[in-house]
């Protein structure tokens, strides 16, 4: 059991700028983290990650066991088994694949296995739609996984590296998922900085193998029956670990900054300090939102923006601090909370956190195109009082509530 004591470097590590798609950035980060076992089934728009990893293994660039499984259900089973043996593991999926994997997702939590998974976020059937929104990832909120939602290829690359450190931390030992926009991030070629020396990544995120695992020298049984007098206590450890992980996530993000010169925090804010209107969203459309904030500011509307990054564990206290003094909080959700108290899942959680009504609109559902003008118009309606809080609004839906 190696300690995770790391000496902060005085000088940041040398990096070079390259251009990659989001998917290939994830694949590269995974390769640099040296997983022992990768199991995945290709499903659009995640396929390039799996293909690239298969290529790395085939070329001998990555010394990992690559298991081409026949479905996501088996992919998660395989990584659970491998992780229970002490292997660093990776899998990736999206949409129906995640749905098919669902049965095994809480098992990784209950067994406290630090599996890292990528999700090129995408909507769910029916009708069949291979395009992007956050319907798949949002279904994972109640399971106990750590959930990151990232903005671009650079952040996807960095967060995969951070996720291994967080998941394998002695205080955490929970699986983590890194989600990014299907197509809008997964297939978009972007510049990003990567370490010149790949060893730096493994030095930052060394494989600890410190979690509870099967070992012939120290025999154990994992996955036994948890009768009513035991289940809750065992599960509660995962609840507490997830709560504890909030601190660890921040700590590792700060340390990442020392090494790589980039950090993201639990959420990202933009011109929020004196804002009267805050636009809250997640994923790649944050760039558009920032542009809208600038435009509104030029017109005299005190606007700001906030991008949710870590949605599990929910950084409630910090969000409250950031948004409490802002009169109008406008959450643009990218997944539908069917029949819920608010039509978007994140709006529901933000409203619960602030304990007051928030404005809510849905956008990008089924990857409906969105531009900054559309967000601007919606924000103006909120600012002018044309839209009411606690109501259902949509951005881009034909005949929708506007």
């Amino acid at each position, binding site marked *: 059991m190696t300690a995770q004591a790391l000496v902060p470097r005085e000088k940041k590590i040398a990096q070079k700028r390259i251009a990659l798609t989001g998917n290939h950035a994830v694949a590269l980060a995974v390769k640099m983290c040296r997983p022992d076992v990768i199991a995945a089934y290709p499903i659009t728009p995640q396929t390039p990650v799996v293909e690239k990893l298969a290529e790395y293994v085939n070329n001998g660039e990555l010394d990992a066991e690559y298991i081409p499984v026949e479905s996501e259900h088996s992919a998660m089973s395989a990584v659970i088994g491998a992780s229970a043996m002490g292997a660093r593991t990776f899998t990736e999926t999206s949409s129906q694949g995640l749905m098919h994997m669902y049965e095994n997702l809480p098992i990784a939590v209950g067994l406290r296995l630090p599996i890292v998974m990528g999700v090129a976020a995408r909507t769910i059937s029916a009708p069949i739609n291979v395009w992007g929104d956050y319907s798949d990832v949002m279904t994972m909120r109640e399971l106990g996984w750590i959930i990151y939602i990232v903005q671009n290829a650079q952040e996807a690359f960095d967060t995969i590296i951070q996720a291994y450190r967080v998941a394998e931390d002695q205080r955490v030992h929970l699986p983590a998922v890194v989600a990014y926009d299907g197509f809008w991030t997964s297939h978009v070629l972007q510049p990003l900085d990567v370490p010149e020396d790949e060893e730096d990544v493994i030095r930052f995120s060394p494989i600890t193998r410190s979690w509870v695992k099967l070992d012939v020298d120290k025999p*154990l049984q994992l996955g036994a029956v948890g*009768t*009513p007098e035991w289940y809750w*206590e*065992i599960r509660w450890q995962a609840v507490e670990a997830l709560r504890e992980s909030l601190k660890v996530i921040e700590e590792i993000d700060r340390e990442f900054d020392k090494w790589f010169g980039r950090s993201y925090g639990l959420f990202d804010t933009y011109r929020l300090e004196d804002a009267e209107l805050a636009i809250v969203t997640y994923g790649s459309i944050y760039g558009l939102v920032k542009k809208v904030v600038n435009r509104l500011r030029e017109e005299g509307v005190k606007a700001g923006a906030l991008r949710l990054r870590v949605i599990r564990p929910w950084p409630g206290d910090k969000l409250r601090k950031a948004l409490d003094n802002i009169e109008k909080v406008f959450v643009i959700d990218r997944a539908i909370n069917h029949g819920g108290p608010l039509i978007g899942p994140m709006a529901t959680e933000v409203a619960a956190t602030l304990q007051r009504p928030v404005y809510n609109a849905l956008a990008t559902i089924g990857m409906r195109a969105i531009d900054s003008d559309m967000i601007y118009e919606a924000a103006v309606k909120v600012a002018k009082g044309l839209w009411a809080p606690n109501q259902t609004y949509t951005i881009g839906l034909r005949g929708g509530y506007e």
Partner: protein
Amino acid sequence: MRIETLWLGRGGQGIVTATYIIANAAVMDGFYAIANPEFGAERRGAPVKAFLTIDKNPIEDLEPIKTPDAVIIFDDKLIDSMRFAIDAVKPGGYVIVNSAKQPEEVRKIVGRNDVYIVVVDAVGIAMKHVGLPVPNGPLAGAFSKVMGFPRLESIKTAFENQLGKAVEENFAATKEAYEVAVVLKPEKVDTSAKPKGVISTTSAFLTGPYELVGWQQVNKGGAVGPGSSLQYLTGGWRIEKPIIDHSKCIMCRKCWLYCPDDAIIEAWREAPGPRGRVFRTKVIDFDYQYCKGCGICAEVCPTGAIQMVREI
């Protein structure tokens, strides 16, 4: 009127079915009844409890019964491990026991003088009529006798509804138990006295005698260390136990090979030889702490050296 009962037995003895049958029959007789069993993934032989409440008025609360009016025990070997249940019976209540022992001896084991003790050899009766060691039918009969309800005809109809087979055989067993069950009256009853204990609402007794600790102390990820099954003595699960005639045993160890519980052991035995010398020989023996009495050893023994004998 509200009668709360607790039925204790082992997986496979028909505890849950017995409560369903009595509830079914009670409903036919115009009562409200709720049979709420509490069990999970128990194996045959593991302790199981079931609750049965009968009332003149509708019942909405599925509350675990803490101080029952009657406890029905399917296996007299459970009395010691389930003493808390016997202690919880209200003074003036009933303890109905399936046992082949003499009623006075059962009274001594139960150890209470302020409750009715009902003794019936339910396994013997069931073997006679049904041909299976399932004591639930006879115990239903004993229950009907001491409670005065449900009526025997209703129990018969309940058998038809619930089992749909071997109704005559089961009913014959029920009827015989109704007739032969021995009821020992309490020596003195102080109905104002409280029971000695209450039944805990945790189901802890179902799986083992371990210490229940807080979430901070539970093994991470629910990992279970080796040797934990050693603490869990399953020997009490038996209805029949194996005995061996060493003169017939050829030490083929087929029983050892087939035993699912690792309960066949090799032991040293000292026996005098023909000229008075003492020889130490290896013999087959049983670890009765873990033997569940499945009878596989007797079944596979090629020389018939192992016999199963009734224990309760």
